Each structure stands twice: as structure tokens, then as C-alpha cells.
């Protein structure tokens, strides 16, 4: 939904589960994206906890975790959501006079709109929900309620195992062949697949060095750095302003993705495009590691038409440094607008190869996988 359409925004506010005040000072170019005042959202949602009778507690917990930023990363969010849906299905009982298929689909839709209110869905989550709904719709009518519930929970388990966990294992095996002794590998932010690749290659005994590039305001690379150091890898840590400085010693770049679109564009954390561009300029191969369930048939040419806006206070303030906080508390000035983009789009020219669970493919082969293997969803 485009958020500059006032009529539809008002309609969705009436159905909203909790009240979110919109941010006052928004950048004109991004008016079609939702942006809310982050300060009061969590307290508002928490105070409504006991009043939300229709909400399953597991879904509520996942929503609060999204809103508070306790769970980040495409795979983790997807797994958390699917596990919550498993609990919903286990606790579900068909009300009299309704069919399981229609009622459960309606319930899941309402929970999904609650999760969207907490934090907009990532494309991987959208695919997972579409899979879930198609499985519910395809339930044979002869099944009893307990059998149907067991079948659905089984499907969710299979989805998580085959599309995420097994896919990650395959990606790790493929990518480890691309790491040679003496390599200097660069990664940006914190992607769970890239972390698995680095740890696996290290276990295989390959000698390499890792450069972790990080950026404000989230500093996601620091958690990755801590875990890599705990396992004994030799790491370098730098911020994105120095990426062109360090790129001359790098031999390969491994990046994660939130999604890969049909024109080969990689949609991932803001800053990835920058790193890929610099690597391309230095003729360093860029490898994107992404599970196939995150592929999407959409085509996006820029980072503007679809994105997510974060909290503007995060960029106005530097935590722990009160001396540089001159921007703080200025979010309501008329001449000043803060823009905290969360995602960006990396064009396919900068990407050398995409490593998926279907193999190592060039970016132009993404629409082929979407076309050929998407049907497989329905045949599981």
C-alpha cells in the first residue's frame, strides 16, 4: 500500500490494532513509505497487551520482538514468524459453522497485518506467508481437524528445514569451494549465511583473513565480529567510509541479501550497493549468498519505490557521545528532515555470482529459477 494515499491510510488506521502516530517531518520523496514516531510505539503496544484478546500470545511476542528490534535478519524473522504460526495452528480449533480453510486463512491474514504494523514484512517473509496460505488452501476436504493441523505444522517444519536450513548447508558447501588459502574476504554487516560460510571454511582448515565492514546506526557487524573472533578467525574491522581504502587488499567479497529480484538486482541492507560498487571498481569478485526462497519476481530499478524507513532518532544521535549530539531533538524543525533508509538495491552489473541452494548462478538466471522452481512450492 502506498502511504501517500490518504484515504487508504485512514481505512487501515481504523483496522489497526494499536495506535501509531505518524512522524511529522517526512522527506517528500519517501512519502509513500510508512514512517512512525518510534518513541511511543513500544509503550503503546505494551499497554494494550491484555486487551488484545484476539491475538495469539506467540504472535504478539514476535510482533513486540520486531518492534523492539530484538530480532533482525531475514532468516531469523522468517523462522520466528513461522514458529509462531505453528503455535497458532496447534492451538486452533474451528468455530462452529465455519470451515477450517477459510477461518484459518482469515486468522493468519489478521495476524500478518498485525506483524506488518509492527514492522513491514521482508520479501522472504512474504514468500513464506504465500506458501503457507497456498498449503492451507490446498488441504483436502476429507481430512479431520487434527489431521489437517498436523499436516500444516508438518508443512511449516518442512519449509523451514528444506528452504532455510538445508539451503544454508548447500550454500555453505558451494561457497567454501570459492575460498582459497591466502584469501582476504570482505563482508558487510551481519548475514547469517556469510557467517556460516566463514566458520565452515575455517573448520576445513583454510587459511584466510576476514575484513568486516560496518556502518551506523546499527553497527550490526560488531556482533558478527565478536562471534568470528570467538572461533579464532583473524579479522579486521572498519567502517564503510574506509571501504575504498581497504579494498585494494581484498580478494573476494561475500555479501548477504534480503532478497534478489528478477532483474538480478540485490535488495539488501543499506551500504551493500556501495561496497559492491567499490569492489567492482577494484575488480574484486562479489558473491551474493542468498537462499532461493528469498527470490522475488518483482523488478526494481532503484531503492526509492520500495524501502523501509527506520527511526530518525538513530541517525540524529550517537549513543555514548554527548559531545556530537547537536542534531538531537531537532527532528521537528521545518528545514531539516531526517532520512534513515534501511535497504538499498545493488544493480546486477556489480554482482559476479549468486550462490543459492540451486547452485552458483549468474544474476541473469534469477528469473529462470523463479519461473521453474516456484511451481515446486505447490508440489511439495
Amino acid at each position: 500500500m502506498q502511504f501517500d494515499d490518504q484515504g487508504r491510510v485512514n481505512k487501515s488506521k481504523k483496522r489497526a490494532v494499536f495506535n501509531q502516530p505518524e512522524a511529522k517531518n517526512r522527506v517528500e520523496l519517501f512519502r509513500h513509505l510508512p514512517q512512525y514516531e518510534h518513541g511511543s510505539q513500544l509503550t503503546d503496544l505494551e499497554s494494550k497487551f491484555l486487551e488484545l484478546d484476539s491475538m495469539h500470545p506467540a504472535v504478539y511476542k514476535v510482533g513486540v520482538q520486531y518492534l523492539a528490534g530484538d530480532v533482525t535478519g531475514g532468516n531469523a524473522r522468517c523462522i520466528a514468524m513461522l514458529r509462531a504460526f505453528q503455535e497458532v495452528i496447534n492451538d486452533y480449533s474451528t468455530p462452529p459453522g465455519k470451515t477450517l480453510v477459510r477461518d484459518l486463512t482469515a486468522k493468519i491474514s489478521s495476524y500478518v497485518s498485525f506483524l506488518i504494523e509492527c514492522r513491514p514484512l521482508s520479501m522472504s517473509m512474504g514468500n513464506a506467508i504465500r506458501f503457507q496460505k497456498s498449503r492451507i488452501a490446498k488441504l483436502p476436504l476429507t481430512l479431520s481437524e487434527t489431521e489437517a493441523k498436523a499436516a500444516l505444522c508438518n508443512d511449516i517444519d518442512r519449509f523451514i528445514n528444506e528452504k532455510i536450513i538445508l539451503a544454508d548447508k548447500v550454500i555453505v558447501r558451494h561457497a567454501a569451494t570459492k575460498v582459497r588459502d591466502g584469501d582476504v574476504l570482505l563482508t558487510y554487516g551481519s548475514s547469517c549465511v556469510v557467517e556460516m560460510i566463514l566458520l565452515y571454511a575455517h573448520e576445513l582448515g583454510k587459511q584466510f583473513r576476514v575484513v568486516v565492514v560496518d556502518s551506523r546506526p546499527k553497527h550490526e557487524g560488531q556482533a558478527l565480529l565478536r562471534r568470528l573472533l570467538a572461533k579464532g578467525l583473524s579479522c579486521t574491522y572498519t567502517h564503510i567510509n574506509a571501504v575504498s581504502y581497504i579494498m585494494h587488499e581484498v580478494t573476494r567479497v561475500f555479501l548477504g541479501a534480503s532478497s534478489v529480484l528478477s532483474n538480478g538486482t540485490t535488495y539488501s541492507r543499506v551500504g551493500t550497493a556501495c561496497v559492491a560498487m567499490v569492489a567492482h571498481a577494484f575488480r574484486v569478485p562479489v558473491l551474493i549468498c542468498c537462499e532461493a526462497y528469498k527470490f522475488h519476481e518483482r523488478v526494481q530499478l532503484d531503492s526509492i519505490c520500495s524501502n523501509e524507513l527506520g527511526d530518525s532518532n538513530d541517525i540524529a544521535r550517537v549513543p555514548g557521545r554527548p559531545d556530537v549530539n547537536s542534531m538531537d531533538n531537532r527532528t521537528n524543525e521545518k528545514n531539516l528532515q531526517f532520512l534513515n533508509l534501511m535497504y538499498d538495491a545493488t544493480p546486477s552489473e556489480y554482482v559476479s555470482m549468486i550462490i543459492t541452494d540451486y547452485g552458483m548462478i549468474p544474476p541473469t538466471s534469477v528469473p529462470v529459477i523463479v519461473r521453474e522452481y516456484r511451481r515446486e512450492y505447490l508440489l511439495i
Partner: protein
Amino acid sequence: MDFQVVVLAGGTSKKLVPLVSKEVPKALLPVANRPVLSYVLEQLELSNIKDLIVVVEGADAALCVGGWISAAYVDRLHVEVATVPEDVGTAGALRAIAHHLTAKDVLVVSGDLVSDVPPGAVTAAHRRHDAVVTAMICSVPVSGLSEAGSSGAKDKTKKPGRYNIIGMDPTKQFLLHIATGAELEKDTRIRKSILRAVGQMDIRADLMDAHMYAFNRSVLQEVLDQKDKFQSLKQDVLPYLVRSQLKSEILINGAPQGQQAKENGNDKVSYRILANASTPSFHELYALGPNGSAPVRRTHKCCVYIASNSKYCVRLNSIQAFMDINRDVIGEANHLSGYNFSAQNNIIHPSAELGSKTTVGPHCMLGEGSQMGDKCSVKRSVIGRHCRIGSNVKVVNSVVMNHVTIGDGCSIQGSVICSNAQLQERVALKDCQVGLGYVVSAGCEYKGESLARKEK
């Protein structure tokens, strides 16, 4: 939402004699002409809670409370009143009703808490962190008026039992240390392991435990069963759970936490993806073995919810607190009282009669059917229903309950006069408490005394 609410309404508390008696247990003491228990019940009703358990000590008190609740809340709430023997303490009261508790989490609220903090916020914080206990903390209320110190002399020493020492982590989400009033005279001891694990602890003495706790039910039942010497939630159970949070001896959900079997590798991988996605709290970091391997130590989390300064939150556990709450509910926190204030900022019931030249100042309340004589003056006081007040009476900063007769020329300052009491002419009371049905003879002057009828 799988939460059960238990309201601990106490019985006849010793600290509030002579205000409480057999007919008026602590839970039914009127604050702004409404029983104090009604504030808690109304807050719970607003949060859409329909079933609750009210625990009362003593059979007589239980009858009174039960009778009032069924009259007032007959269609709105489904309340089960449980009676426990007297003097078992809050933990003992919960032990007695433990078989009634079936939900996953239990919210325990003290019946004498007057506040407008939504209980949903405490329960949400509890669920978000999967905590074992979540306590609500509020800032210490400003007590008493400076000229009318109830104990007379200015108290240089801290009032024990009112203040807490609370230690929290820098993000103000986890409770690391809690010490209640009695231990304040001695030193307070802090666990070094907790300090080392968390790195930085903020210790505050200006916060108070508001006695609204959210417990994980199985943990609460286990602690109450194992430690049968524990009498009080606030002084025994909560500090025990906070102290042992990094060396957990309790089993969560019937299985020791660190040994939850991860059957196959797939579960382990998805668990690791989820664990890596979120910043680990210091509990998880502490529980890990060397080099960040699998959890070797069992920990549990104690969370805290800090009520914001704009919310009102006070407990009625002393006579001074009773006067303060009455003053606040018709004064600053008047949104709690639920009444509409008149233009002069006071509440006068339409059927009350005022004599000529009688003034009722702002922040006052006059109940139904009360009659005041001529030339009276009422300032910052609460007067109950059906009172007969003579002429030339001055009532300042006081609470007068229902059916009281006050003769002419009386002067009442900073006092509490319970129901059915009778004050004859020219009585002067300053900082006194007059018990139920007591008759103060004419011309007496009392200062700082508590007058009560002898129990037959």
C-alpha cells in the same frame, strides 16, 4: 493471553488501626468515597480482564469484601474471593490458592495499590523477555504536607519499609538487586557474579517497589513449595529470585533450562540463527561456556517495568499514605477518582446541603446526603455520605467517612474520622484518628492520638 490475575486484598492490617476494624477491612477503606479495592478492580476491568481471584485474610473480612464485590461488580467482572488464614503473609496466601492457578503466567497485584499504570505494560514486558518475574517500580511519592507531619517531629531518619534500594542494568530492563526497608539499617550486599556479568549496575534509592508482579506460574509454585519458610513476596520471594538469577536452581517448565534436548541438528541450526539475530542479554552471555560454546550454566531473567513519571502510583500501607492518597485523588491525580469536578475544583454531591456562609474550598469532596451547618469551612478534605455537621466547624486536610455526626464549633485538622463516629461540641482534633463508632465527648482536645472503641 494466558494470564491469571490475583489481587491480594489483605485483611485487617495492624498499621492502619483504628481505621480498619472487623466491619471495614483494609481493602474497603474509602479513598475519595470509593473503597480502595475499587481502584485496582477498575484498572483491571479497563484492561479487559474478566476473571480474577481476590485473596482476603480472615473469614469476616472475606465476607465483607465478597459482599461488596458481588454488589458492585455483579455483571462486569467474574471475581472469586478466596479466604486464607490470618498472618500467613503474601507468599502464604499464594500457597493457599496455588491449586487455583492454571495459566502460564500470574499477575499478582496488591489490593491497596492506587495507580493508573496499565497492567498490560507489566505483562508485556514479562512476555517479551520470557522472564521469571517482572516487578513494577515507581518513584517514591512525596509524602505528607510539610506543616502537618503526622508523627510530629520532622523525620530525619528514613521511614523503614517505604524505601527500597534497587539495582538495574544500564538498559533499565533487568532487575539485578533489590533490598527492602528492614535491611537498610545494615549494609546491603550485592552479588559479585551479577556485577561481573552485567558490567555496569545502576543503583537507585528513589524508586519503590509497587507490589505489582508478573510471575511465571510454574516457577512461582516451585519456589513456594521448596522454600516454605518464605512468608512475604516482597521481602523473601522476589529478592531470592533476583539473587539467584545467574545460578538458577529452579526448573523452568519442568525441565532444567540448560538441558533442553535439541534432538536433531536442524533444531540446533534454527536456534542458532535466532540466537545470532538478537543481541544476547547478559544472562545468555554468562550462561555460555568458554569460547562461546553451548550453555553450561542455568540462568533466569528478572525484569523490571518502570512506571513513567506521569503516572500516579501509591500504596495504601500507612495512615500517612491514606491521607496522602485521599489528598491526591481529589487533587492532582483527580482523573483516578472518576468524578466530574465542579467549577470550583471540588465535588459536591447534589443532595448535600450547605448552610449559609459555609465555604467548601477547592480539592474537596462532599458525599451524598451530607448536611453542613452555617459558617463552616472545609479545606482539602473528603466528607462521606450522610454526615451531619454542625455550625462553625472547621475541617482542614481531613477525611471524614460516612454517617458521622460532628457537633458545633469543632475543629478537625489532619485527622481521620471513621464511620458512625460522633464528635460532640467544641472538640478540637489535630492529627488524630477516630475509630469506628467512637464518641468523643464535648470540649475535648486531642493531638496526635488514636481513639478507638474498645473491642467487646
